[in-house]
């Protein structure tokens, strides 16, 4: 059984939803703590959303130095799966595990609503359950979600097909469009091999049919579909 760890930082949110989504797809959820110095042998590690360390200084800037991040970095370097959701994405960028940065939303508003996102890559560790080009509707909730990168980094991201999710504008009035003025409508990216993925939307918040949709469950199903990384 695939073991998937979820790290709780001071100020994390939705770690419970994430653990339940993992259990729902037949994975073994493993709780991890920011002060842990080992990943307890998990195959994949997820950094959840929230406001770690109050987002002081910058979102994710302090969490990246947590003790747990040393084994996360080693796991990532060995080709192990790492997923960052929302604040987790911000932490991965601050840690240098993904390129670019996430800064204040273009409109300055905190945005909490559903968005339509297009699956740009269906071969990353957390999008295998979807089809390339498929548009799914899942929620975002963030104040610092505008993805930016230097021109060189951006070219490398696009040339390397490292965009995993893009905001799909205009499909539905209540969910369309880029909610934060992210560069090139980027909602999620991965490293060159697709083993490290960061995304602003919260798939775990829409991962049970009792909520009216479980459009986000595919992110977790994908982990189980994937061959277990040799971690």
């Amino acid at each position, binding site marked *: 059984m695939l073991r998937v760890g979820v790290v709780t930082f001071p100020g994390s949110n939705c770690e419970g939803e994430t653990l339940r989504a993992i259990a729902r797809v037949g994975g073994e959820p493993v709780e991890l703590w920011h002060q842990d110095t080992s990943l307890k042998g998990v195959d994949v590690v997820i950094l959840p959303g929230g406001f770690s360390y109050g987002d002081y*200084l910058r979102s994710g800037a302090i969490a990246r*130095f947590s003790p747990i991040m040393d084994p996360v970095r080693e796991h990532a370097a060995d080709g192990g799966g790492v997923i960052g959701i929302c604040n987790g994405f911000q932490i991965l960028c*601050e840690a240098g595990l993904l390129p670019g*940065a996430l*800064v*204040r939303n*273009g409109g300055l508003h905190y945005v909490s609503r559903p968005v339509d996102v297009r699956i740009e890559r269906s071969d990353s560790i957390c999008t295998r359950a979807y089809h390339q080009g498929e548009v799914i509707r899942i929620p975002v909730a963030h104040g610092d979600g505008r993805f*930016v990168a230097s021109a060189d*980094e951006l070219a490398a991201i696009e040339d390397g097909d490292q965009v995993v999710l893009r905001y799909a504008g205009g499909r539905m009035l209540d969910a369309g469009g880029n909610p934060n*003025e992210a560069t090139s409508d980027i909602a999620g990216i991965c490293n060159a091999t697709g083993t490290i993925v960061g995304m602003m939307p919260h798939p775990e918040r829409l991962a049970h049919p009792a909520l009216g949709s479980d459009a986000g469950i595919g992110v977790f199903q994908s982990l189980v579909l994937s061959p277990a990384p040799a971690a």
Partner: protein
Amino acid sequence: MKTYRVHVRVMPRAGLLDPAGQAVEHALTALGFAGATNVHLGKAIALDLEGASEADAIARARAMCDRLLANPVTEDFTVEVAA
């Protein structure tokens, strides 16, 4: 070792969209302060820092900026020691 009062200023990189700076600029204009342009919001960080010399303290403060206080992708910083 001497203790130096170090002032770090972190600003959004020039050319990068700064919506907070724009919002303040609009508010200043709305209040009637004409001619205020190119407004940007950054962070000021002050600390007492031990160092063998002023140059040493500045070098250590710059290392702090590289690792934690500023984001190399989106921000620029300056370091000054108070006289």
